[in-house]
């Protein structure tokens, strides 16, 4: 297993380097010069001043040199300062990332808990009333964009019914408590999770249907093993593999979904921070968010591979003869 983990990590490193380079080039191509943010146009700056400024920040160097310098700083945890207000990018980002991860984790948890249970339930009752109803609903779920779900959720449950707060992470003027946080989390997390409940349900159902008619299931039943054990230990254990893959692949879209949901519910996360940075062309923050997003997705992929290896011995032992 150790070797398997190591191999997976080593595969991610070149991708990560390529990603940092892509981010750097993208921002380099973006219009505007970083020095614009340090000069006051009313003070009459000469070309010589600008050249000095460029030399001081190393901006006169060729692209590969600048990239390596930037990468060196980044590796030391220095992501620079925001153009917008001079705040350190890393610190702001860390706080916002935490909030986004809370939202994403809650949505993923709901997606898994409800989606996989519904998938097993319907997979065992193909063509029943519940199968048709839930499968039909799942179609609406996978067709529902996060922003449509978010807006309808906000309108119905916060504005009209008033059951949940309309936005933010905590009640203003009250000291923060886990209950208050959970209270504010319900709507954003649920609306974000709808798509994943539907997706995980569909995959679980499909792969349960594939597995449930296999010979080894009949054997297990024939041996007199209780149905519950047959379903959970024999069928589900095998049916879960595609769901693990889909979960890993979902994290990328989950980041995008979180961006919309954070905007709708004014959740102070990374997505709303990114949108804000994009609108004012706050390049250091744009780069910071992109880098963090890439790392989050890569870690999710890595975790998927590891889970996969843990669940399926065939994968982890591959090529280890």
């Amino acid at each position, binding site marked *: 297993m150790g070797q398997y983990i190591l191999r997976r990590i080593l595969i991610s490193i070149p991708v990560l380097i390529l990603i940092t380079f892509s981010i750097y080039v993208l921002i380099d191509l973006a*219009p505007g010069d970083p020095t614009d943010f340090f000069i006051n146009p009313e003070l009459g700056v000469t070309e010589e001043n600008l050249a000095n400024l460029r030399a001081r920040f190393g901006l006169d160097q060729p692209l590969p040199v600048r990239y390596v310098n930037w990468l060196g700083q980044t590796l030391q945890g220095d992501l620079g300062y925001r153009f917008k207000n001079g705040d350190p990018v890393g610190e702001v980002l860390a706080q916002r990332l935490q909030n986004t991860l809370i939202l994403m984790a809650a949505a993923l948890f709901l997606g898994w808990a409800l989606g996989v249970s519904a998938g097993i339930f319907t997979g065992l009752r193909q063509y029943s009333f519940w199968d048709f109803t839930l499968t039909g609903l799942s179609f609406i779920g996978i067709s529902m964009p996060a*922003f*449509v779900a978010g807006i309808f959720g906000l309108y119905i449950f916060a504005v009209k019914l008033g059951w949940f707060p309309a936005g933010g992470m905590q009640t203003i003027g009250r000291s923060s408590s886990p209950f208050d946080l959970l209270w504010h989390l319900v709507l954003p997390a649920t609306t974000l999770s709808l798509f994943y409940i539907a997706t995980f349900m569909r995959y679980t159902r499909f792969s349960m249907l594939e597995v449930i008619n296999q010979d080894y299931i009949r054997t297990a039943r024939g041996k007199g093993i209780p149905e519950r054990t047959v379903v959970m230990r024999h069928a589900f254990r095998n049916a879960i593999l595609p769901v693990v893959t889909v979960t890993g692949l979902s994290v*990328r*879209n989950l980041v995008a979904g979180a*961006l919309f949901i954070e905007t709708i519910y004014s959740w102070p996360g990374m997505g709303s921070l990114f949108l804000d940075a*994009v609108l004012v062309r706050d390049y250091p923050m744009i780069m910071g968010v*992109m880098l963090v997003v890439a790392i989050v997705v890569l870690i999710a992929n890595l975790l998927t591979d590891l889970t996969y290896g843990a669940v399926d011995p065939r994968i982890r032992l591959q090529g280890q003869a």
Partner: protein
Amino acid sequence: MTTADLTQDPTLLAGKAPKSDSPTRRAIQRFRRHRLAMLALVIFSIICLSAIFAPVIERYPPDAISLRDKFQPPSAEHWLGTDRLGRDVWSRTVNGGRVSLAVGLMAALISTSIGMLFGAISGYYGGWSDMAVMRVTDVFLTFPPIIIMLAIAAFVGQSIVNVILIIGLLSWPTTARLVRGQVLAVREEQFVLASRSLGAKNSRLINQHVLPNTIAPLLAEVTFAVGAAILTEAGLSFLGLGVPLPTPSWGNMLETARSLDILENGPWMWVPPAIMTLLTILCINFIGDGVRDAIDPRHRGKG
């Protein structure tokens, strides 16, 4: 079949050509039996027709501002009410559909073409070109597309053409991966080898043999790509970086709901585009599912 059988074939006696049983015809038959997909196709056609004939069925110009009529709930005068500037919401919804569908189709056309090209090159030639294309897709597939698109949209400025180009030029990696996989499988088939041994050039092999055999699986992918592109446009416009006002699109109509006042007091302004976006994506998903089942019956029962 012997000659005796042939003369007794009723279709021949009736002077008709025998019904050919090509894979395409069988796939079409299977698709037509897929009731939900057929229903979705009908609804989607209606949505498309309303988009094409938007100038005919609109009751006011979509960007005609009339401040005297602003913020009106639905009435006989304005079927879906009016927005903050007194523009007719019905007219904006049908015209918005026109823009959203056009952007979605064009962007999907661009991304599928690029995806097919890179996928075919990568799968067919292998080696360093495969390596290069795959590493690029690796990078793309690590980012949620909307993150890169938002940044670029902010850099290049807003226009319909920019939205189409941004979505089209950045959404190809999934298609490329799919085509590559298909090409890898087809490349090793006997008939490709046969053609090669007859002296066919690479370009001929790709165009005549490899690509046509990847078209069928690609068809479902194209359907979903159109849906994804429509969704992306709506998302970008919703965040204020897509189709610029005053041109209506479902996404930028939905953007009005980001103001709590309109969300609460003017649901007629944002519910129509929300429902239309959801309905369109739902139809496209059903159609795509039907297409996939029709082409590859092994997928049956997944939806």
